[in-house]
């Protein structure tokens, strides 16, 4: 199982990754709109909420 540590692959420096961390809140916002939003952020919140109703149930997120 020595292959489970990866000493021969050069890791990407954290400095380079820092910029990309800015994408994280955007992606979380997309996930939020699908799973929780009820008009709090998006204008069409209620509509989106109802539209994605089945997906939310089947993705296992609390609903109702």
């Amino acid at each position: 199982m020595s292959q489970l540590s990866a000493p021969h692959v050069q890791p990407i420096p954290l400095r380079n990754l820092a910029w990309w961390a800015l994408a994280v809140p955007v992606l979380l916002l997309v996930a939020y709109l699908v799973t929780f939003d009820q008009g709090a952020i998006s204008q069409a919140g209620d509509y989106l909420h109802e539209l994605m109703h089945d997906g939310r149930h089947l993705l296992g997120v609390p609903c109702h």
Partner: protein
Amino acid sequence: MIRPLFVRGLLAGIIAGLAAGVFAYFAGEPHIDSAIALEEAAAHTHAEVPLVSRSGQVGGLFLATALYGLAVGGLFGLAFALVRGRIGPRSGSVLSITLAAAGFVAVVLVPFVKYPANPPAVGDPATIGSRTSLYLVAVAIGLLAMAAAAVAHRIFEVNGEPVRWLATGLGFLVPVTAAWVFLPVVSEVPEGFPADLLWDFRVSSLGTQVVLWGVLGVSYAYLWHRSERVAGAPQGVPA
């Protein structure tokens, strides 16, 4: 250098989301329909005019799973960029599948065991706020436990495989078990709700997430492998 890892994550995520949507359509929708029929029978009235029709909601299923897959895939691509070379398998393809399995356990399985998915008609609308918070706490604990396991795996590298894997397992299981035991219980299944319908719905919901994370890991691995082949294995070691 990071951009292709990220873009591949988005792509693999959409593929995974659509695959999960197809699974959910066939495996899950019949149970949602049955639960809604029970809900309406219990309410006796049809006064509520739906904002979105049932067929609209079924179409929305694919939109929901695709968008969710896109978001998860993007985060997955960035996590891959962060993890690669620091911890985990050396091969990019094997790392992709390992990371997807770890993500599934942390983000889906840990919360699911404590707060399983519920069909329509199950759950008190008055408690949605607290149930959502508890669910997010469970997701956070799953992620922290997985991170603790990864750190333990790294720290105990020099102590031999048995000690190392014991530490990895404990790093994950101690916080997760504590959360399962100490987080408040939510039990809101209405009196008389069919147990087999509840069970079937929950299995189909878990299956939807298995498909999503499974297809994500495999398609990301495929895209990685393909790019390595095109680039002629830049590190001199074929993945």
